């Protein structure tokens, strides 16, 4: 996208991607400079031009980056000659070190009003872009959703910028040592030579489409509006433990603290506990974002929210969503989508905050802070909070709210370690070790078994071996990239398997009635403390099957195994102490 220097006597120098466009107040540019350049470079030149204007003509750079004539100090009504600012730009360009071009100021003889059919779409456009940060690719896509041509979407965006509702931001900005992406905050870029010198492509946020330094982002300045009439109709009642936690959450919403952690046991119903607080925030006109690390988690929560908040527009934004730019006051999104918002939400609820891809991802932490409106609140939900957040809680920087018991008031199943030496070898697995077969028989008698394995290739191997060993049972498996994953998970939920083999993709969010859990090679490096706790948490979640065995099968009791067992025992102790268990 090219930006052009434009000149008009009222606003002096500005940058615009469509110079011929009339402004909302009826003024228009008189001339523009060709050729256009990427915004990042143009900004630098404009700043230099501003400095070059004679010092006794005070020039001010406004919020929109325009250089305005204020007149020499003390005198008003002086006409700034038409030549002065244009000459300043040409001098700044010459001094900038940019490659030579045939710079020429073009007069604009006729400017263009927006076509009436375009004006009609302006309001819809405005609703959709509120609080958002969109790349050129995003704008094109939004255009398609609205039935607009690419150039028309850009014109609407420029109108929004002219009215102060938004601003244009260079996609990547040079810093002292390198570049910083303005969408995701990353400094990991790939540089390459272009026709203006050096360009850079961000390597971190490619999941949202590519972004280079030649491009600009549209960043809306407004918050998301909460306007629709909705009711809060909780489905079912909160138990005493949940009610206590919900009360504390309301208190947090109303108070002055900016961060809180809800540390809940697996299956304690941490999502429903948030609903009263969400209802309150929405009633106060505060937009809410519910973010989760994976699509499954988001799709698990969406229907529950829809059931509790009938009438509320609550769009679900994931990589797979067909409508990416739906407007709404309660937005559910996978964390990457968060990078498309800018100071949009007063409340952000982050589910499963310790899960991939947060862990070790400063980009997403950065994105969340960017999506939060100033003065906004972040609520973290987790059964296995990361050490950093626990430290902040201990320091008092983050409020800690605990929910250690499941709603059926039975303790969490405590995993037991079973010694199992894995049959390694290049020949691969040929048959099921008898000790494992014995355990599986015991478990299957109680309910469907979720068998967790550390690596994707293991799934198919073990499916084959176990089918051989137990021909009467229904056995299948899945992993993250499995095309049939949705269908298989649905079948699993309906209880159609005796054994289901999976990687950690199913460790969170999923509720299977009567599930028993066996973790194979629980001492494998891939299984950390938090993963093990989450896997154990798949058992005993429903009132009709509150028990459920959890077995960690491993050669030795690794540190993660020991700590996971200790963690779960501690949750049970806390719950018992608070009278939350029967």
């Amino acid at each position, binding site marked *: 996208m*090219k930006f052009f220097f434009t000149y008009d006597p009222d606003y002096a120098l500005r940058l615009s991607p469509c110079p011929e466009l009339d402004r909302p107040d009826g003024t228009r540019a008189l001339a523009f400079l060709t*050729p256009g350049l990427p915004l990042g470079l143009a900004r630098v030149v404009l700043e230099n031009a501003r400095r070059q204007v004679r010092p006794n003509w005070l020039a001010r750079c406004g919020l929109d980056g325009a250089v305005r004539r204020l007149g020499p100090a003390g005198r008003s009504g002086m006409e700034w000659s038409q030549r002065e600012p244009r000459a300043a730009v040409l001098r700044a360009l010459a001094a900038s070190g940019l*490659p030579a071009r045939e710079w020429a100021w073009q007069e604009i003889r006729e400017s263009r009003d927006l076509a009436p059919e375009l004006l009609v779409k302006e309001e819809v456009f405005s609703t959709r872009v509120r609080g958002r940060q969109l790349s050129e690719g995003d704008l094109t896509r939004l255009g398609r959703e609205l039935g607009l041509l690419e150039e028309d979407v850009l014109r609407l965006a420029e109108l929004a910028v002219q009215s102060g509702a938004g601003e244009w931001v260079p996609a990547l900005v040079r810093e002292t040592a390198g570049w910083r992406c303005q969408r995701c905050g990353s400094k990991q870029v*790939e*540089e*390459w*030579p*272009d*026709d*203006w*010198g*050096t*360009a850079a*492509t961000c390597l971190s946020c*490619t999941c949202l489409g*590519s*972004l*280079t330094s*030649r491009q600009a982002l549209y960043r809306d300045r407004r918050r998301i509006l909460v306007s629709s009439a909705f009711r809060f109709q909780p489905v079912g009642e909160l138990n005493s433990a949940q009610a206590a936690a919900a009360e504390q959450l309301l208190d947090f919403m109303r108070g002055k603290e900016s961060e809180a952690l809800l540390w809940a046991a697996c299956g304690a119903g941490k999502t429903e506990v948030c609903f009263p607080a969400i209802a309150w925030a929405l009633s106060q006109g505060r937009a809410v974002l519910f973010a989760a690390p994976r699509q499954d988690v988001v799709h698990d929560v969406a229907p529950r929210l829809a059931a509790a908040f009938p009438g509320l527009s609550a769009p679900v934004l994931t990589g797979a969503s067909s409508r990416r730019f739906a407007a709404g006051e309660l937005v559910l999104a996978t964390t990457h989508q968060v990078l498309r918002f800018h100071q949009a939400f007063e409340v952000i609820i982050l589910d499963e905050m310790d899960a991939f891809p947060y862990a070790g991802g400063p980009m997403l932490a950065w994105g969340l802070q960017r999506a939060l409106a100033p003065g906004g609140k972040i609520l973290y939900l987790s059964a296995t909070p990361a050490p950093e957040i626990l430290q902040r809680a201990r320091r008092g920087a983050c409020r800690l709210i605990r929910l250690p018991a499941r709603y059926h008031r039975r303790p969490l199943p405590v995993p037991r370690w079973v010694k199992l030496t894995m049959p390694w070898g290049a020949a691969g697995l040929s048959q099921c070790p008898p000790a494992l077969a014995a355990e599986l028989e015991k478990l299957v008698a109680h309910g469907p078994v979720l068998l967790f394995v550390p690596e994707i290739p293991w799934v198919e191997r073990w499916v084959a071996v176990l089918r051989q060993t137990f021909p009467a049972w229904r056995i299948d498996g899945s992993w993250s990239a499995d095309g049939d994953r949705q269908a298989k998970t649905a079948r699993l939920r309906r209880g159609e398997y005796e054994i289901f083999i999976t990687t950690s993709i199913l460790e969170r969010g999923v509720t299977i009635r009567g599930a028993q859990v066996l973790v194979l090679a629980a001492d494998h490096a891939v299984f950390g403390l938090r993963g093990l706790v989450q896997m154990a948490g798949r058992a005993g979640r429903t009132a009709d099957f509150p028990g459920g065995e959890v077995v960690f099968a491993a050669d030795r009791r690794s540190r993660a195994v020991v700590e996971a067992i200790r963690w779960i025992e501690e949750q049970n102790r806390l719950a018992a102490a608070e009278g939350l268990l029967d």
Partner: protein
Amino acid sequence: MNSLLRSGWERLWRDRGLPEAKALARSLIYQDDRVCVLCGAAAGPLCVDCRKAYLHPELGRCSNCGKLIASSVSLCTDCQLGKGPRHLDRVAAWGHYAGLWKDFIWQVKFQGRPRLLASVGKDFALWALDRLPPADGVIPVPIHPERLAERGFNQAEVLASLLHWQLGLPLVEGLVRVRATPPQVKLNRQERLHNLRGAFQAARGSGLAGRSFWLVDDVITTGATLEACAEALRSAGAAEIYGLCLAAGMEKMLVGLEN
């Protein structure tokens, strides 16, 4: 490619550690090249499995249009029927425009990753050296200045710059795109040929007369683009023109048998 861009890319090849023409034999494995640039899994820059799956060393190339064909024949069925380009002396295309290879080329072109070409530059240059006779220079298929202003680079030029760097072949700005054309994708063969009529002209004063050239583009499908370029070059007196691309289609009968 103007001289500023040209020197910019050469500086990048040097800084990235890409071996220069003389040092082609002794080269160190660069950081980026440790994993396969296509599948990211095994040893890079192009792992054994991906080479088999996309570069098809066991298949031949139609000498007229570069399509991947059985090694027992020298022309694809279309070219045997006279449907292919006529103004090129030979064409060589490295891989099959499908799967990860197609994704890779798409990533370079549309995701602002021209630098990725460096990962395959050395192998491509060595392969080309093997398939085509030596030439006086390498000419990239140009894109319209508007397109260049949009994207900031022409992937054919970047490839040509790589070949120049690796093999010492002079990079010749032999062609100019005088007419922007709408994308070829939705057009049939006749429409594509018509689309490109008059789109290219030989650049003045580039000393083409009596010389031989490698004409480089990223992908060849019908050959209409290379054909139109070759016509323009011949009318300026070029003697021999060899087409060279990263990818081409595959003879229909072979598709599906490749695994």
